[in-house]
């Protein structure tokens, strides 16, 4: 899937360059380049529907993640600005131990990077067995620790799980979705045989 994605990106860049060189009515400015790039990337994405439908769905999920990320990023900035400008500070900070469902390295990295930019949260550490994430939050959503865990699970992690279940192959889906270390060792042993 990663190879397919890089081929898609390179081909769309080449198509964008070709459009800018040959089509006369496209202006050679930044706006023209951006419009040509988006046109070529959607065209190639629609062509991809003929070859593999899984890649088509994967791009849809990545677009959902980007939309969620931009929305949360702007919301966090507005909220912090309000908090700093108004004279009275009312924060409810807490350190929450959030259980992880993602198992892959890249998934955990993307989760920490995005949740450092969403409102109030700052990832402080990962436990040694990689099953929990220590998150320092400024605003405790809903007042208790359980509601904050539910907010993290339903907001960011669900979207990342959708992406990782589409981008991995069949055996690894069970490890990423399961969550027991016993099942992972069983699958590894069955692979060796």
């Amino acid at each position, binding site marked *: 899937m990663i190879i397919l994605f890089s081929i898609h990106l390179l081909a769309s860049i080449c198509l964008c360059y070709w459009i800018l060189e040959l089509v006369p009515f496209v202006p050679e400015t*930044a706006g023209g380049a951006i419009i040509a790039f988006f046109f070529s990337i959607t065209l190639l994405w629609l062509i991809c529907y003929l070859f593999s439908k899984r890649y088509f769905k994967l791009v849809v999920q990545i677009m959902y993640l980007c939309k969620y990320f931009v929305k949360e990023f*702007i919301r966090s900035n507005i909220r912090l600005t309000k908090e700093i400008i108004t004279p009275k500070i009312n*924060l409810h*900070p807490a*350190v929450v131990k959030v259980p992880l469902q993602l198992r892959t390295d890249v998934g955990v990295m993307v989760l920490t*990077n995005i949740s450092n*930019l969403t409102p109030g949260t700052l*990832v*402080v550490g990962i436990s040694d067995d990689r099953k929990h994430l220590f998150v320092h939050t400024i605003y405790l959503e809903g007042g208790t620790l359980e509601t904050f865990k539910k907010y993290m699970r339903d907001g960011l992690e669900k979207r990342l799980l959708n992406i990782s279940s589409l981008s991995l192959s069949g055996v690894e889906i069970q490890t990423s979705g399961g969550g027991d270390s016993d099942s992972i060792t069983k699958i590894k042993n069955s692979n060796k045989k």
Partner: protein
Amino acid sequence: MNNLTLILTAILVLLGSFTMLISAIGILRLPDFYSRLSAVTKNSTLGVLLIIMAAVLYFNNIEVMLKGLGIMFFIALTSPTSAYIIAKAAIHIKVPFWNKTDLTDFDNSDTEEEEEIKPRK
């Protein structure tokens, strides 16, 4: 050069510098090391992104746009990572929390406190 693009770049530069100013005030006003760190990462990242977008809009070139996209991508990638590393180092040397912080979940779990430094082979 249009009047409209000039007004838009002025608005973007003002918004970016305003968010940077807010993050600088937030360092002084917030009570705790960790809350200060979170304020700095979010607001200063958005400020830098807005100023680079203003530069791209002002020059309106393909070369400037490619360089600006590179800078935006790497800043959005590295600033949360560095914030995570600083927070982990602060936990490691036991920087104190604010006195209103809810630490029940953190005290019960002793995996983070007992980090052993293993010798390399």
